[in-house]
């Protein structure tokens, strides 16, 4: 167990963990606006990667235009999902809406399989292919891109929710929906916006990882579940916790695969999920609500 391999596992864990974190953020944003767990979140992540591959190949675009187009299309899919499947059942029980999101995820997966096939695809790296050596670990430039883009998304979301009136209005919808209506916030529009932002963040997570781990029509299931595990680990509803949870799961998974056995790689995320649910269901960063009656 030398320093080189520890570093190597750490970097690859953080790389994959970034995508888990972004997936988890997507869950958090919709949950905060609606109290619904959107089980189609993993499909947003898959769509980001698959559409980028499609646009790069079929339309012969460069990586950057393909990525931008893929992320915009996925955002649009998020908006359509809200308009077509969530808004018509407004006021329905949260559990029913969650089941609808599972239906949407199966539908999206099916459509992608039908049109893009069951093959596994890859994207060329965004910029630079030569790995850098760093204390005996080989770091590919894409890893650095992933970490940078994830940081940017986090800073962007933080600014949006803490500094802009629209971000605060979106939080207001989650804290006290009736009062949000009464101060003139269009709650419908905020819910739609939350789906758009979730799809945007999720697809960014999917597209940045594709040059490293490959993609296919069904990667959304596993990514979605691990993103969900990251949410629970960080405390459901806490954006900071979601991002941190994703990174932690990514790193633990990577160390587990490296030092124990790669056969159990996927199991680690779910072992963590179960342990957290037994030991501290509010998550490691979960806080008790401030309440005064």
């Amino acid at each position, binding site marked *: 167990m030398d320093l080189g391999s520890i570093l190597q596992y750490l970097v690859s864990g953080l790389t994959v963990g970034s995508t888990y974190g972004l997936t988890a953020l997507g869950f958090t944003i919709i949950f905060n606006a609606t109290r619904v767990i959107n089980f189609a979140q993993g499909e947003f992540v898959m769509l980001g990667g698959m559409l980028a591959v499609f646009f790069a190949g079929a339309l012969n675009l460069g990586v950057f235009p393909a990525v931008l187009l893929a992320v915009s299309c996925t955002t649009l899919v998020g908006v359509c999902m809200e308009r077509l499947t969530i808004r018509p059942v407004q006021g329905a029980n949260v559990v029913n809406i969650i089941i609808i999101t599972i239906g949407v995820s199966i539908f999206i997966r099916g459509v992608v399989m039908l049109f893009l096939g069951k093959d596994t695809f890859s994207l060329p790296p965004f910029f630079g292919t030569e790995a850098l050596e760093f204390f005996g670990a080989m770091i590919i430039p894409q890893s650095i891109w992933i970490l940078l883009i994830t940081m940017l998304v986090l800073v962007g979301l933080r600014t949006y929710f803490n500094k802009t009136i629209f971000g*605060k209005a979106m939080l*207001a919808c989650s*804290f*006290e929906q009736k*009062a949000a*209506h*009464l*101060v*003139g*916030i269009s709650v419908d529009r905020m819910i739609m916006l939350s789906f758009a932002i979730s799809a945007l963040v999720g697809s960014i997570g999917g597209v940045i990882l594709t040059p490293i781990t490959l993609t296919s029509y069904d990667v959304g299931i596993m990514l979605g579940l691990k993103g969900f595990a990251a949410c629970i680990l960080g405390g459901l509803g806490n954006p900071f916790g979601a991002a941190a949870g994703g990174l932690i799961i990514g790193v633990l998974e990577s160390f587990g695969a490296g030092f124990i056995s790669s056969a159990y790689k996927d199991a680690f995320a779910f072992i963590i999920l179960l342990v957290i649910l037994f030991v501290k269901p509010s998550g490691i960063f979960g806080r008790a609500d401030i309440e005064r009656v």
Partner: protein
Amino acid sequence: MLVLKNIDVFYGKVHAVKKVSLHVDQGEIVALIGGNGAGKTTLLSTISGLIRAGRGQIVFEGREINRQKPDKIVKSGISQVPERRLVFKPLSVEDNLLLGSYHRYSLGRSASIGRDVEEIFAMFPVLGERRNQPAGTLSGGEQQMLSIGRALMAKPRLLLLDEPGMGLAPAISQMIFRHVSKLRDELGATVLLVEQNARSALKISDRGYVLETGRVIVQGTSKELMQNNDVQRAYLGRDAGESGR
């Protein structure tokens, strides 16, 4: 200013408000009193657009508003201070006020909003002292002030107040009622006040309506209502024989 004509509201199969007609004129404080489940809150929710009236007409400043969504109604000049205050607890006091003026942001006229926040702090100094504290850490009375301040930030011409005294110590509740009459006297606000505490409500209002199981059973000036035998017996806790005040 506000006219309700023959309003019927249904909650599922429950007929919560039955053929209610009432009006509020510019500069008045009108009290709507009645016990639990009389339909007072339902009526305010209907005016604010949270619930659709089954039948009837709601006219505000000459325009019919009963098919409009809540955000449009706020824009047209009606703000509500909801029952149980409903402040955004995890957000700061200042953010709560800023959100009160949300519809003015969407119109792109945000320049004066900062000044308005300071005006609210001048009206309720205790809120100014706690501007960066989460609203959930305020006391009940302070939360009520914040909820009123938040509604005022929308620059309403008509203010709907739902049980502002509920759950507050009598002294605090009296102070809130004094603030409400100051709003009218100093800012020229028009207020529709819903209250279970009939005495406090009638003391500061010009006219009143008594609601019972969804119907208006008595209406008149506040003075008349204070002296009405039925109202005294049912809502002011007095024997009919005892004389007023």
